[in-house]
């Protein structure tokens, strides 16, 4: 379904974007708090392996945990300080996780150790990937998938496109937006490195049309020697989902169960691209990121550069604290983010924003029976039947959900829950159903006779 004004995919939803709170607020650097909490698991894949002990002193940018395997990245100290404890600590995913508690050195100039800045131009793709992994870079769009893995396509796949995801379709969030507006050269520099590393000739930056200043900034700074297109996109959720972006830009659908690489595309978040550029500019690893702290429950909505590991309470305090009617705090966007009950929870690499909703904005609690209105079918970007899936989930028929109704293709974007007039927690039910199936599978695998693992 092509729109008159821009490109988009079919289905999806139109939540109010609520970005006006922070879209014109320049990024500021938040001062270092007294304490930081650095979980060892801040990325998809295996948690990093601890390198420090209690009492160790670290400099800003020092590695405190190393990558444990291929799908893993190291963790670096985001400030100079002393390891106060290594303990179980509230984690943004709602669990307790092993975390390095760092007492930040007061009055420290926070100057990192001098380090070698690699010359990107002389590096092979493998060396670039190594530098990216060594910098602890993960997808900054929220999923926190280690970036270097995405840069390593199998030899038999021909890549055509580098897609840079600047859609930022989640309401409220403006981190990517401000990054594009304030650091367009850095974004283009990152694109240049990525294109060379991947060996692709074309790059497309997809930006939703509610960010005209970002589009203008990127256009203005576009290098002449590269084939980079800035593609305005219709404002619609989930425009920024990988599969949707690929569909919109290339016209291709990533086959069910396959990766973007299979249609010749690699998608990188604008923030990740900028971080990579920074590695090759300053040599500093991923120790801080841009976070939008917003919502009508925050007194001073801001776009901040926050050291990774800063705790929720400190960040909110810096933004003027909460209003009296603040009711719910969400890490990430309101569509896919998670509620946080605990002020000690740290902001991690994948935390795109902190959204504070007020009593008035919290979603209604009364649920009604499914009236089969079909609004969720119209919303689902991957064309599932959430209505039916929901009924099956309630009945506990998980296998049927997977086999007959393609549960595993659900990307939990929340569009169905958003439109459901009966307030049925569809997306949550699907997430749980997927977990149930995964557990079942693990059980089956565990009970199967062990194969010889060499």
């Amino acid at each position, binding site marked *: 379904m092509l729109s008159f004004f821009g490109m988009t995919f079919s289905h999806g939803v139109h939540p109010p974007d609520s970005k006006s709170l922070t879209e014109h607020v320049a990024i500021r650097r938040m001062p270092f708090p007294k304490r930081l909490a650095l979980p060892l698991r801040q990325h998809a894949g295996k948690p990093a392996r601890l390198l420090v002990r209690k009492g160790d002193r670290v400099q800003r940018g020092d590695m405190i945990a190393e990558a444990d395997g291929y799908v893993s990245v190291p963790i670096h100290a985001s400030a100079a300080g002393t390891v106060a404890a290594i303990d179980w600590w509230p984690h943004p995913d709602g669990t307790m996780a092993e975390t390095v508690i760092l007492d930040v050195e007061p009055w420290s100039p926070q100057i990192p150790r001098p380090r070698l800045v690699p010359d990107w131009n002389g590096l092979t793709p493998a060396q670039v990937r190594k530098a990216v992994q060594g910098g602890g870079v993960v997808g900054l769009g929220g999923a926190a998938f280690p970036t270097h893995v995405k840069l390593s396509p199998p030899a038999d796949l021909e890549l055509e496109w580098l897609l840079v995801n600047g859609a930022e379709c989640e309401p409220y969030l403006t981190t990517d937006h401000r990054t594009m507006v304030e650091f367009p050269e850095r974004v283009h520099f990152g694109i240049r490195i990525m294109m060379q590393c991947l060996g692709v000739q074309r790059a497309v930056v997809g930006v939703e049309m509610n960010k005209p200043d970002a589009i203008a900034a990127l256009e203005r700074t576009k290098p002449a020697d590269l084939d980079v297109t800035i593609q305005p996109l219709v404002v619609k959720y989930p425009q920024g989902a990988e599969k949707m972006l690929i569909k919109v830009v290339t016209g291709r659908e990533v086959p069910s169960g396959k990766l973007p690489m299979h249609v010749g595309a690699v998608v990188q978040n604008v923030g990740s691209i900028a971080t990579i550029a920074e590695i090759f500019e300053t040599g500093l690893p991923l120790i801080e990121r841009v976070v939008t702290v917003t919502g009508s429950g925050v007194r001073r909505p801001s776009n901040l550069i926050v050291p990774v590991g800063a705790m929720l309470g400190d960040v909110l305090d810096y933004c003027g604290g909460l209003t009296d009617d603040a009711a719910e705090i969400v890490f990430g966007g309101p569509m896919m983010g998670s509620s*946080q009950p605990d002020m000690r929870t740290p902001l991690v690499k994948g935390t795109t924003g902190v959204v504070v909703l007020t009593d008035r*904005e919290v979603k209604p609690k009364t649920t*009604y029976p499914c009236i*089969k209105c079909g609004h969720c079918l119209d919303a689902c970007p991957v064309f599932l039947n959430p209505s039916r899936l929901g009924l099956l989930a309630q009945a506990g028929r998980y296998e049927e959900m997977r086999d007959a109704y393609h549960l595993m293709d659900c990307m939990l974007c929340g569009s169905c829950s958003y439109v459901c007039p009966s307030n049925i927690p569809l997306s949550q039910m699907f997430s749980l159903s997927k977990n149930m199936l995964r557990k079942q599978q693990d059980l089956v695998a565990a009970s199967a006779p062990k194969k010889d693992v060499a």
Partner: protein
Amino acid sequence: MEAPRFELTASPHIKGPDSTPRIMWTVVATLVPVVGAAVWYFGPSALLVISASTAGCLLTERVFGPGGAVRDGSAAITGLLLGLTLPPGLPMWMAGLGGVFAIGFGKLVFGGLGQNIFNPALLGRAFLQAAFPEDLTTWPDMSGPWSALRGDNLALPLMSADPVATVTGATPLGLMKFEGTDTELVRLVLGSTGGSLGETAAVVILLGGAYLALKKYLDWRIPVAIFATVALLSALIHLLDPSKPGALFMLFSGGLMLGAVYMATDMVTSPTTPRGAWIFGFGIGALVVLIRLWGGLPEGVMYSILLMNALVPFIDRATKPRLFGTGKEAMA
């Protein structure tokens, strides 16, 4: 840590503007003009009959339904729609009984809102049709003062209507079927003909339907499919056999408008998939033409919709949407 001060909910944390009660009450609101038209054409009788059926529905929902279910508005819709399918001269107790049946047997025995297979209003109407065939096919004459009752609306509960109180007229479809006479199209469109309360206000119904379709509170494909099927089929048949009525007559007579716009599009009992909606609408249209032209009854909208209601689970299963990344759109 202090007691949890903050909400802890699953994503998404924001919610679209639509809610089930809002949808239902909007439908009710669009039905108000239709009820108004019924009162305009049929006088106070219309109000009596519709109030009785609505009261029957609301009361049943209140007594036997889950707590607070009356507030979601679905029982009110059922009551209004049921009332609109009834003849103006019907005793109020019958209309009320129809409402009780519609909610009790049409909805609650299936497990309440969202669980029923058949449109409750039509099931109530079918029950009344089977229970009191004579009263349900007694069409009052349209002449006479506006304020006069069109029949024995006030008959005592369980008692027969006084046949003397009813001056019978005929419906356009009845005239077509049994007398072979046509009714002027202008009168059909304007609604100044005999028939059920909601059969005669085509324009008002279409306007209400258009508004609901715009708000996405009904699937526009269903009425469009029904109208197209009925129009094309009857035009074709009219060409082959000019003694059969033409497309416009078929569209504007009987309960087709009300049925296509308000009954067939009942979310619970219609397919959820777009292709399913087309099939569903086509099935209803074809059945309506078949029953009207060759069946024993003058009108077939009610049975057509109920029959297709029964097929909805199969239609839904057969028209699963194409999964993203499969079929010819996907590139492997």
